């Protein structure tokens, strides 16, 4: 699509400028986030070295020496600029907690988080497709689904996790309560069993929200004149819902799924720490407890970048698939 690049196809060049424009919008976002986080950590009583202030083995002159070594005696702007340029170059510094490179610590946790988020998203999408379509079409289903989905979006994630743990792990002993695998290593079944509860918790809230969204956009689609026309032609109700209305409701649904990435990220932090899932989210809570600022900053920067990229993908997909939006998004 982009390789062609000739002006005889204005659609694809316009697409390219759209993508470039959207990418350009991510950069100021990341600058704002980085400034915010950097300023926050400097606002901490004692600054980035506050961890050492309570340590009786660290003398005040040691702190003073560290402060000079780490450039913490420089003015704020200078510190920020040198940090942000180093960060952009891929130098994320070392963890305060164990001295290892931050990038290494983050990267080794990524697969577990991707697995958890991936499986949860998949489950939530499947559930919400079924519930959303069924409740848009069937009155009886709708009544039950409305109550269930409102309950789903109202559940405090961490409490839901604790209750499931109590019920299925500690009382019934059906499933393991935490971790990604048993100590012995464990086979595929063992790993799958560890995945069940965290996935239910993380997928639950999203499935509820997305079902509600799909239901209302299905309802909207079903009121369109072309549905009436199709019904007059004798198209069956089931085909009407799945082939005609769902096709129209699917695009906004996909957008919402992608745009919810930031909420998914927050949910993963909570879920991972409740179930001791060894992912990026539990690394974040560990780092928070130890005031491991380099890890915290890298986490937030990567999280915001990932979310921004996903919303970019959502915009581009909509832009490519739905011609109506092309005029509207031009800014």
């Amino acid at each position: 699509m982009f390789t062609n690049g000739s002006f005889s196809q204005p659609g694809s060049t316009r697409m390219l400028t759209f993508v470039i424009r959207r990418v350009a919008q991510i950069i100021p976002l990341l600058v704002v986030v980085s400034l915010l986080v950097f300023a926050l950590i400097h606002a901490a009583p004692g600054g980035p070295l506050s961890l050492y202030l309570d340590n009786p083995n660290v003398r005040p002159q040691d702190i003073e020496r560290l402060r000079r070594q780490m450039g913490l005696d420089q003015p704020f702007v200078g510190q920020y600029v040198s940090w942000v340029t180093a960060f952009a170059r891929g130098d994320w510094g070392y963890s305060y907690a164990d001295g290892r490179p931050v990038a290494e610590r983050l990267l080794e946790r990524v697969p577990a988080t991707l697995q958890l988020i991936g499986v949860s998203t998949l489950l939530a999408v499947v559930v919400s497709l079924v519930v959303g379509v069924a409740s848009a079409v069937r009155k009886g289903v709708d009544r039950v689904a409305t109550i269930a989905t409102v309950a789903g979006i109202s559940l405090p994630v961490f409490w839901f996790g604790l209750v499931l743990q109590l019920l299925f792990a500690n009382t019934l002993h059906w499933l393991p309560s935490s971790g990604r695998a048993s100590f012995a290593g464990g086979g595929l079944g063992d790993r799958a069993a560890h995945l069940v509860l965290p996935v239910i918790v993380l997928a639950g809230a999203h499935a509820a929200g997305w079902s509600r969204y799909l239901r209302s956009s299905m309802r909207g689609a079903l009121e369109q004149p072309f549905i009436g026309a199709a019904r007059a032609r004798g198209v069956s109700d089931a085909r009407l819902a799945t082939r005609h209305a769902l096709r129209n409701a699917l695009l906004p649904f996909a957008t919402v799924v992608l745009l919810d990435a930031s909420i998914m990220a927050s949910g993963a932090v909570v879920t991972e720490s409740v179930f001791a899932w060894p992912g990026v989210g539990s690394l974040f809570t560990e780092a928070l407890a130890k005031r491991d600022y380099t890890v915290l900053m890298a986490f937030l920067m990567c999280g915001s970048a990932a979310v921004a990229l996903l919303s970019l993908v959502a915009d581009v997909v909509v832009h490519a698939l739905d011609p109506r939006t092309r005029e509207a998004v031009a800014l």
Partner: protein
Amino acid sequence: MIRAWLRRHRAALVPGAVLGALLILAAFAPLIAPYTFDALDLARRRGAPSLHHLFGTDELGRDLLTRSLYGARISLAIGLVSAALSAAIGVTVGAVAGFAGGIIDAALMRLTDAMLSVPRLPLLMIAAAVLEPSVPLLITLVSAVGWMETARVVRADVQSIAVRDFVTAARATGARAPRILLRHILPGVVPTIAVALTLSVGRGILLESALSFFGVGVQPPTASWGNMLYQAQTTMSSEPWLGIFPGACIFLTVLCCNLLASAAEPDVVAARETRR
């Protein structure tokens, strides 16, 4: 007025009544609670729910029902105040963006999008951990990240009202922009704002409890539903009631807020329909 509204919105009856009851219980907690806040019942420490202690007791023998009632004051106060604050910010941003249009609109919406794409909970957790946590700080933080949804819906409504004939007429009579916005446009957005406000009470309570659950929210000895859960999580298998009841309180409150909001949804739709 409220009675007439409730008659038209039967679905609001139960959640409205429950929320009202919770507010009364919270407001009069010192009078209603069976024990004083810090009373220790040393003979019944770690006691399961019983006639003496309906919600059970914790490791110091403090009555959990009493603590839940006092916790309600903090949790509800944070939810309500932060909802009011974030609604104020959201309505201002949304109304100005929708009414002014152009570059002001673009800038404000970029800001809104940026705020929406930062993972909220981790950002708040860092902020709350770094800046010594207190109730006013929590309210500030929760409202600082809770206004974006309101801003978006208010902007959309303001935009659709601003192009209507009566607004043009008002402008023709020489009314200035602030007057048009406040007297002619915003009254039509009231149902939308009310629903957004109700939803953000629930969101605020959830956010506060999540922060407290990670130990960076409301600090003991003050009790909130969230920090009661924080203290309960390690003993969940031996004294499950310590975690179940505060969590159920959060769930019930948020559920009622969301049900109330969805019961009022027809008003928003109706207001939008008459606008066409």
